[in-house]
Structure formats: C-alpha cells, structure tokens
C-alpha cells in the first residue's frame, strides 16, 4: 500500500514539473534595473562657487 502511494506521489510530482516546463518555455531575460542614478542636470558640484561668480 505504501509503495503504491509513494509511486503515485512521485508520478504526480513529475507530471506537475513536466506540465510546468511544457507550458512555461524559457523567456528572454529582462535586464535588472540599474541602481538609481541622480539626474545629471541636478548634480551640484561641491567645488563650484555658489551664488554666481564673485569676481564679476
């Protein structure tokens, strides 16, 4: 009895896996999102003079 149950369970697991891979073929890979980088337009150069050019 135990052998029949074990056999049935193993066949069921193989069937689930077979159905899954038959119905879900491998898809092209979607590149992972790159880490968020700051917008170059908003980058503030810490070394730049603030409030305009003082020499003018």
């Amino acid at each position, binding site marked *: *009895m*135990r*052998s*029949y149950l*074990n*056999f049935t*369970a*193993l*066949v069921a*697991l*193989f069937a*689930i*896996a077979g159905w*899954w891979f038959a119905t*879900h073929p*491998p*898809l*092209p*890979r979607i590149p*992972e999102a*790159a*880490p968020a980088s700051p917008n170059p337009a908003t980058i503030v150069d810490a070394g730049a003079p603030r409030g305009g050019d003082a020499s003018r």
Partner: protein
Amino acid sequence: MLDWREANLIRKPALFVFLHRWVKVLAILVGFAGTTVSLMAVVGTYNPMLVARLAAAVLVALAVPAIVTWSIVPRRDPLIAIGIPSETYALMLLAFAVSFVVVAHKLTAPLLIREGDRQAREGEDMVARAVWFLAGVRPPPPSSTPSESTR
C-alpha cells in the same frame, strides 16, 4: 480484510516493482540536483563562495531526509522498514525541488537567475544553463556576460 501491515507486505506485481524502482532512482537523481541548486541559490544570498554554497546545500539535501527517515522507520518491524529510506529520499528531494522551482516560482526565479549568474562567472556553463532553465529564462547571448549588478 488486510490490515495496514499485511497490505504493505503483500507481494506486488513485478512490473510495478520495476517501475517503482526506476521512478525512485529518477526522482532521487532529479530531486537531488534540483534541491541542491535551489538551496545553493538560497545560500548564495548570504555567502557567494562556491564551496560554502555547495557544502551547505549538499549537507541539507542529504541530512534532512536522513533525519526524517531515522524518525519514521519502524525499528521493531524490519520487513515494513524495507524501502522507507529510498522512498523518503525520493519523495522529499523531488517535492522540495518542485515546490521551489514550480510552486514558488515568482519568489524563487530571481534567486535562481542570480545563482545561474554565479555559476557562469565560476565557469560552470552547463550548470548555469540548467539553473537559468529552471528559472524560466534563456541564457544571455554569448557576447554578453552576466553583469556584476546581478549578484
């Protein structure tokens, strides 16, 4: 009316015994491979070293079914105990692999993709392709290599 013990001891058809034996062998081989790469994908989240991933995965994959077998095998009834270890290993390894790869696919696919990337960086192209297949993605084109950001 046979009781449970007699039902387990009754002689089974030779064809069933043959089929069950080879289904068990296949389940242990496929289940061990699937369970090992699944556990490597999990361990790789914390430790990317190949040796650490492989050792932890193989240890868990072999030890857990052994502990379960040890706890359920009837020591006073050796006839009933025949076949329990192989049946436990086959069922547990295959059930874990199917659960990880198929049932929890949405949660585990990213882990498997990153494990495939690690395998590719380590030069294990065949393993990497198998793991990417389990993750449900195609291998990247030959010109591109997995980026460091996918670690």
